[in-house]
């Protein structure tokens, strides 16, 4: 019962309208475990004060991100969405949020890390009425995990979770991975596979002889460069994210740039999706804007494929692909993003739209199997032809 003597029920203003309960915040000084406990205690307190239990989840939408001109990264705004128990449209998600919190709490207690798929299985069971499961699929639990991350202000890694690992790296770099010393110049044809968690507790850099880092979108192109020992000839660390790089790869790139003081070049398909991969590496993403400052590499350079490259390198129109409606609308969409407003980017994208075609990295092979290794990239680097 409320001590104030105002009686049962939510507090009301003199005009009878319920006062909006204050925003639920999580102090930054707390660690992940303490934040989850804070959530539980606050929830109990809400029930005691007869406040409809809620969590305030920062919005992960375009409208709630801003591009910081000073820091050159995408940052999350202050807008939150309230999720409450006693609202039929939100009740299920509210329940799931607490279930995920409890799962993470358990991981932290037992000092284990697990995949987000595993957490889904840990938290999934059938409700008492036998008609409904707590989660009907991993696609239901994954967004809840991200909700909890942003709500608590705790990273997935801090919650002892990781996504399925994806991505490989080779090059003149030695590091310690979970206690094992690994020389990335002796990784054969497959390279070192980048783990889901690359925090200093797990990965430590020992030494390197690299001059730059090259991130390659396509694994096939990465394999070509590795086989041709491009990294040895040019002293670089060669990384692929197999498409949009995972959080592990992005965090690793950040740490290498930050700690080894190396420049990063991004080598992607010439289409709107390639541009956006570069943009996520450089500025961060809309969905994970809250992690930009730990992952974005504002100094990353777009080395290709540029929409001007096919002309400059005399690629045959035969290996181009016609833009479809989806490509065109996506291109127009990113033209309007604050962080694509720079002149070179507007020129680059408009040129692609004007040409009406897109190019995959593999298109370079039409000029010879090792054209990319022996001519294209060396010349691009020598000409400092990048954005």
């Amino acid at each position, binding site marked *: 019962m409320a001590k104030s003597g105002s009686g049962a029920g939510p507090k009301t203003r003199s005009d009878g309208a319920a006062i909006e309960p204050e925003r639920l915040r999580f102090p930054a000084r707390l660690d992940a475990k303490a934040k*989850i406990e804070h959530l*539980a205690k606050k*929830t109990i307190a809400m029930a*005691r004060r007869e406040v409809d239990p809620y969590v305030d989840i920062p919005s992960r939408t375009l409208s709630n991100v801003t591009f910081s001109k000073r820091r050159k990264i995408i940052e999350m705004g202050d807008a939150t969405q309230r999720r409450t128990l*006693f609202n039929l449209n939100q*009740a299920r998600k509210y329940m799931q949020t*607490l279930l995920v919190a409890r799962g993470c709490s358990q991981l932290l207690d037992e000092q284990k890390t697990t995949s987000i798929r595993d957490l889904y299985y840990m938290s999934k069971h059938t409700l008492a009425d036998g008609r409904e499961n*707590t989660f009907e699929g991993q696609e239901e639990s994954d967004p809840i995990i991200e909700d909890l991350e942003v709500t608590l202000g705790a990273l997935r890694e801090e919650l002892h979770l990781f996504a399925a690992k994806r991505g490989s790296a080779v090059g003149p770099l030695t590091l310690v991975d979970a206690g094992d010393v690994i020389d990335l110049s002796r990784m054969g044809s497959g390279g070192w596979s980048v783990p889901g968690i690359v925090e200093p507790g797990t990965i430590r850099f020992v030494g390197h002889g690299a001059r730059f880092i090259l991130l390659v979108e396509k694994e096939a192109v990465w394999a070509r460069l590795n086989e041709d020992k491009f990294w040895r000839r040019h002293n670089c660390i060669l990384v692929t994210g197999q498409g949009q790089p995972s959080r592990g790869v992005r965090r690793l790139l950040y740490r290498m740039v930050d700690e080894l003081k190396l420049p990063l070049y991004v080598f992607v398909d010439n289409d709107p999706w390639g541009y956006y991969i570069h943009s996520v590496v450089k500025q961060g993403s809309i969905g994970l804007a809250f992690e930009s400052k730990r992952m974005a590499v504002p100094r990353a350079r777009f080395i290709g494929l540029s929409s001007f490259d096919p002309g400059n390198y005399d690629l045959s129109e035969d290996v181009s692909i016609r833009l479809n409606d989806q490509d065109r609308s996506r291109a127009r969409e990113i033209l309007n993003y604050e962080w694509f407003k720079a002149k070179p980017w507007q020129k680059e994208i408009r040129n692609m739209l004007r040409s009406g075609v897109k190019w995959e990295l593999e298109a370079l092979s039409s000029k010879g199997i090792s054209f990319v290794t022996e001519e294209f990239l060396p010349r691009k680097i020598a000409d400092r032809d990048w954005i």
Partner: protein
Amino acid sequence: MAKRVTAETLSRRQREISVSEFFAKNRHLLGFDSLRKALLTTVKEAVDNSLDACEEAGILPEIRVELEAAEGDNRYLVRVTDNGPGIVEAQAPRIFGQLLYGSKFHSLKQSRGQQGIGISAAAMYGQLTTGKPVSVVSRTGPGSPAYAMQVVIDTNTNRPKAVGKKKLAEWRLDHGTRVELELEAQYVKGRQSVEEFLHQVAVANPHATLHYRSPHGEETHYARGVQSNPAPPREIKPHPHGVELGVLMKMLQSTEHATISRCLSRDFSRVSPQMAVGLARRAGIDPKARPGTVVRKAVDKLYQALNDAATRIRPPSTDCLSPIGVQELLAGLTRGIRAEFYGVETRRPAVYRGNPFQVEVGLAWGGDLRADDLARVLRFANRVPLQYLAGSCCITKAVMDVSWRNYGLTQSRGALPTGPLIVLVHLASVWVPFSSESKVAVADYDEIRKEIKLAVQTCGRRLGRYVKRKARARSEARRREVFNLYIEEIVHSVEGITGREQKLFRDRLLAMSRRKTELAGMLEEQNASADELEASDNVVVVDPNAAPPVPDRAPAAVAQSGDVKPGETAPAEPAEAAESVRPPLPVEAERDPGPQMELL
């Protein structure tokens, strides 16, 4: 080459066709075309006559219908006894033995029978199929003795003959009539059965007490639901808009008035003397002319003048109609149908072709009615149930015209809605436009169809509000269920995080859940439409959980005094006859002793 026949030879073959002979060859016209239908039509004609007679005499009707299997295949005995005013002995042979004899054909007044064919046709059918004449017992009052007779019909001459007349020293009833006749027939149960017919009579005539015994000896009783007869309908004169040319000519020939203007203003309703003069002049007739002398051509013009839109003749007065009434209809529905929601609407009288008519609609929804069936339409014309040709009847069409989806029911295109629903439609009129002589379906007049549709829609809206409110209450319960289910998960999660049992937390959340859902329920209750629904005189809602189980049939001896309000249900009584077969619709227990009579 055929031999030429002279007109004289032909004339020897031409002779008057007796009505009875005509009937024998055209029995389908009057509802005797199948064995099943013959039984139903016979009972219907006898019951109609009894009810009409009682009401005209101001007596609360109590009618007993008995069916017995007679000797021989497909032979049944029908016996109908009423407590009506009785029949004067001299009239009895003509009433039961002469087609087209009666009091109702010549008057414009709302009554069940119209043409004077019914009971005499049944008697003729009985005589034709079994050779046995109709037996009648009747008594006109305690002062005179009851008499008995048999009426034989001479089918050649359309003349009845009374045989075996005798005075009875004693008869159980102070006044009343008993008709008994044997006929070839087939007894069935279910749709279009005698049981179903009587059940519907009971619904539309809550002032009548009915007793029924089936050929198997099963008894069904319907106690009176209201304690007064409907207001007696008034006789009116024909309205000019409803008169056909031939009728107009006949009226001019046979009028007792000396001038055409007097004839028009006295023999028709809503024609003033000035208007009569004007009408005659417009037809080129001297207003003072003798009606009989007006030539055909002039009558034609007069007919046109009467029906001219420019001739502003007020619609006929409508106090000649006798609707069932809102409370009476509710009483009839609740005594005959076990449902959850009852709604009734009576339209104001309207006019088609110069004939006043009035539409009443009752809905019964839920309860014992089956949810996955098509809705049933109970059709009544002047309180008489219509049993055949539902598909071509104006009433059925009007009910199908309504968009039932608006009221929370499902409905396929061009079909009746699906749901636990009975739609009762009563059409009261001085002249019901039947689509055939056997009076089983109402002809399709736009005015009538529109009135029916409007009445059904008004009832439907009330039903829709009720159904939706119920659905909301259900979803409220489901909401609480969901919250409570999730609360268990939340408490479990919080316990896991804090490492402590959180009993108080759980109790608080459950209490909040209860309050949240209750509050929503209360807000719903305060909804104005809900209040309006409850307060309406046109609606009765029976709590489906509160209604006691009602036996299929209740013993006649059960007697309770006091008025019965609609919606009340009688306490359960054990069913008397174990061999009983469920009647088409459930029947409530007898609740009113009325003036106790022995109709056995």
